[in-house]
């Protein structure tokens, strides 16, 4: 990439203030900004400043980057600040990060149109040029201010580590010293961005900015917010989706010390108390009769059985290439398999929670806020406010994996109804116990897939049919009309309809059952969490049937997809694909398996090595990963995200399953929805493909290839193919 010049679209609408320079892109004049400090205290906007979009430079040399995206573990805060600091040539140690307020006019996700929110592994991808320009503009203005003060040409000025220098006159100034003068400089019409080779932070090991606060207990999560007079609310929820309160007896609950009030809300019965433990005792002392007349009452076995029936008929077409029917009619060999995928809970370590306060001018929320625009509309609707009267303070989220970006704003609306029911007389912290969180729905939808492959006499893959059955995430949301086309919710089929392999005759179709009322949602990697498994294990089975090597067959079919092929070759090479695997102990069988998948425009191949012990138990020994996510902004974090994705995916593969009986979720806590443990974590090696492509996501793409790579390794070890997830309870010995 050469030096590029871009047009800066910023309006000149920042003012000189008493304490520094305020900068941004497309700043509205009237917006009020409130930022959350690490100690959860709030500062009022300095009236002498325009509220800024992404950057504030203080006279004390502090550099404050405003993050429009949620930090939920994926490293966004550090990554976004790195982009700004790179173009600004800031001293990294002086950089701090604040969460942005809800204001889609400044902080919309550029890949989501007018909406503000975090998800789909888009934070870096959509912010890349936006924040480079923000940093470069500020740098240019600091340089211009120095040139004016020192009466030297701009071209003779250099900037490094937060210091502006003019070598010939031996003058220098820290950013803070120039901040006020820079605020008087015009916003440059265009700015030059750095050539990749000149990056000092991007691509280097930049430590996480949130490490200190997250290792001394000071990091503020929603769970930690305390407001004067705040009441803690726990809710008795219907055991079934769609159940309503018929009647309840709160006489015992009201006698518990600390309990202040009990209110009925559409979601159940809420107990409000002065502290969490009193609220829990009060909630547990309620007797509630539920009206299940409109509740959903099927079990997950019945749901999947109905899906298998549906799969016998053609569905809505998501993709059709060539003529699959003819290919199958003339096939020398047909391979067929079907797959069952369970519901999965996100089970973030911080159960869902929310703090909300009503005031004369609106509603204020403290939340691990992932979908600002949707939540503003939803809460405005409950309270009869305008969306911009809903002020959202974005705190750290103790994990999310998609759960906090809820297109139905479930737990926020629940909090709003409690606040409304008490007439807004106190701030309320809604706390879900683990059991509430586990049973609240918004699961990764259960799916049934059927795959068929047609091979000709030479073993060439001539036809592919993939049918999927499962609930739509978008159905019933405000986004249904936009996101569901011709009966196909893209999130149901992504990864299947985008199959990269060169197969001339291919059909992907989908059934979306409308009568299953289990709330569903995206779960880290969304559709690819199941489509990568079925496509990559099935292709492996096809390779065996055709007598071909799993890597060689894939490479043959990926000629037009160099990035897929690139990561596949790299992972295979690093894993020693084709070389014999060291033998296990007596009675153990070892195997190696591969999978490659693109999601969110990032490409990842993984080679798994497993041991199946004599008793049929599984040990995942090592996973070698090759990643192409464009320019690696923070390689250390990319490695961390892929390591974490491996563990997250293994939890689901090994044991992850939410089941229902007569509509009631059977799991409640970590004893029956158990997560991967330290002793089960395999060795993970991550290799990053050097790239000059724009950066893409890394929070999710590491997840999809894990389960198929491990399943293919099990098949290589024992011959056993896995058609139903999770592995728990299945004999892997072949």
């Amino acid at each position, binding site marked *: 990439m050469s030096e590029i010049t871009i047009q800066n679209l910023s309006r000149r609408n920042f003012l000189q203030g008493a304490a520094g320079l305020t900068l941004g892109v497309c700043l509205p004049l009237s917006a009020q900004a409130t930022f959350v400090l690490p100690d959860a205290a709030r500062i009022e906007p300095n009236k002498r400043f325009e509220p800024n979009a992404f950057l504030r430079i203080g006279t004390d040399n502090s550099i404050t980057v405003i993050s429009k995206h949620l930090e939920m573990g994926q490293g966004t805060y550090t990554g976004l600040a790195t982009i700004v600091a790179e173009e600004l040539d800031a001293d990294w140690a002086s950089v701090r990060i604040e969460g942005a307020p809800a204001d889609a006019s400044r902080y919309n996700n550029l890949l989501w149109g007018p909406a503000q929110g975090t998800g789909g592994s888009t934070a870096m991808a959509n912010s890349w040029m936006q924040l480079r320009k923000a940093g470069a503009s500020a740098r240019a203005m600091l340089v211009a201010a120095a040139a004016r003060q020192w009466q030297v040409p701009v071209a003779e000025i250099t900037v490094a580590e937060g210091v502006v220098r003019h070598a010939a006159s031996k003058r220098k100034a820290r950013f803070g010293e120039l901040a006020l003068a820079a605020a008087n400089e015009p916003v440059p019409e265009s700015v030059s961005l750095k050539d990749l080779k000149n990056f000092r932070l991007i691509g280097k090991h930049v430590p996480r900015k949130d490490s200190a606060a997250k290792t001394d207990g000071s990091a503020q999560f929603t769970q930690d917010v305390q407001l004067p007079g705040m009441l803690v609310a726990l809710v008795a929820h219907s055991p079934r989706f769609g159940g309503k309160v018929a009647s309840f007896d709160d006489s015992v609950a009201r006698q518990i010390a600390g309990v202040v009030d009990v209110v009925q809300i559409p979601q159940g019965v809420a107990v409000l108390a002065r502290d969490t433990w009193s609220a829990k005792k009060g909630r547990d002392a309620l007797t509630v009769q539920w009206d299940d007349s409109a509740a959903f009452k099927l079990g997950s076995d019945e749901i999947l059985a109905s899906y298998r029936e549906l799969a016998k008929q053609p569905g809505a077409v998501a993709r059709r290439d060539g003529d699959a029917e003819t290919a199958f009619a003339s096939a020398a060999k047909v391979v067929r398999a079907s797959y069952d995928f369970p519901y999965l809970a996100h089970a973030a370590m911080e159960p869902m929670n929310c703090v909300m306060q009503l005031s004369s001018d609106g509603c204020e929320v403290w939340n691990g806020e992932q979908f600002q625009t949707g939540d503003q509309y939803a809460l405005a609707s409950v309270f009869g406010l305008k969306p911009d009267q809903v002020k959202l303070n974005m705190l750290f989220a103790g994990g999310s994996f998609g759960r906090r970006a809820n297109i139905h704003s479930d737990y926020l609306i629940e909090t709003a109804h409690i606040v409304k029911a008490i007439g807004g007389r106190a701030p309320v912290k809604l706390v879900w116990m683990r059991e509430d969180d586990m049973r609240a729905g918004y699961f990764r939808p259960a799916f049934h897939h059927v795959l068929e492959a047609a091979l000709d006499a030479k073993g060439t893959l001539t036809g592919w049919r993939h049918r999927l059955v499962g609930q739509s995430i978008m159905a019933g949301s405000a986004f249904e009309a936009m996101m569901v086309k011709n009966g196909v919710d893209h999130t149901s089929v992504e990864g299947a309809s985008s199959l990269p392999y060169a197969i001339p005759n291919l059909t992907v179709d989908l059934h979306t059952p409308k009568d299953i009322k289990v709330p569903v949602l995206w779960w880290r990697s969304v559709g690819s969490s199941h489509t990568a498994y079925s496509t990559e294990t099935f292709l492996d089975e096809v390779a065996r049937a055709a007598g071909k090597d799993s890597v060689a067959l894939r490479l043959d079919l990926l000629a037009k997809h160099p990035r897929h092929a690139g990561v596949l070759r790299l992972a295979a090479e690093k894993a020693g694909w084709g070389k014999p695997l060291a033998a296990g102990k007596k009675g153990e069988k070892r195997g190696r398996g591969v999978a490659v998948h693109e999601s969110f425009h990032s490409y990842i191949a993984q080679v798994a090595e497993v041991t199946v012990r004599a008793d049929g138990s599984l040990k995942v020994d090592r996973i070698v990963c090759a990643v192409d996510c464009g320019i690696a902004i923070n390689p250390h974090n990319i490695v961390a995200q892929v390591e974490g994705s491996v*563990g997250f995916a293994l939890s689901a593969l090994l044991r992850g399953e939410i089941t229902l009986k007569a509509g009631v979720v059977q799991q409640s806590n970590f004893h029956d929805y158990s997560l991967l443990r330290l002793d089960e974590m395999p060795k993970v090696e991550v290799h990053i493909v050097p790239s000059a492509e724009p950066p893409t996501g890394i929070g999710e793409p590491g997840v999809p290839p894990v389960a198929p790579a491990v399943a293919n390794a099990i098949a290589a070890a024992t011959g056993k193919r896995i058609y139903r997830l999770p592995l728990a309870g299945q004999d892997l010995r072949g």
Partner: protein
Amino acid sequence: MITLNINGKQRALDVAPDTPLLWALRDGAQLTGTKYSCGMSLCGACTVHVDGAAVRSCSTPVSTVVGKRIRTIEAADADKVGQAVQAAWRKLDVVQCGYCQSGQIMGAISLLQKTRKPTDAQIDEALQGNLCRCATYVRVRAAVHEAAKQLGV
């Protein structure tokens, strides 16, 4: 009122005797670094030290810890072991969402106080009850080794 010795200070807390130590710390003493996640000793996010031993504060009634020394993440840096663990965690950028990390760190400090140079198997045994949904496990293990190295034997 119950008086507890928390991080070297006597704290009088207005909580019921059956209140789990977790909620007494969080809602009573305003020490929110110790986290709630399961409430049943299943995940380790609420790990604190009581008389030097790692315990799950979510399942420990306050009435059972009166007169005992309680140490939370807020006092993790009170000794060399704690400082070494925090430094190692920061050096290796262990944290992701961070919600379980107070418990991981208190578990690691407890391990290193007893076992100055733990093996992988000893780390597994000591910390396998500390769940991390972000699966930072590779780095948790590496950071315990790093802290041990910094402490010397």
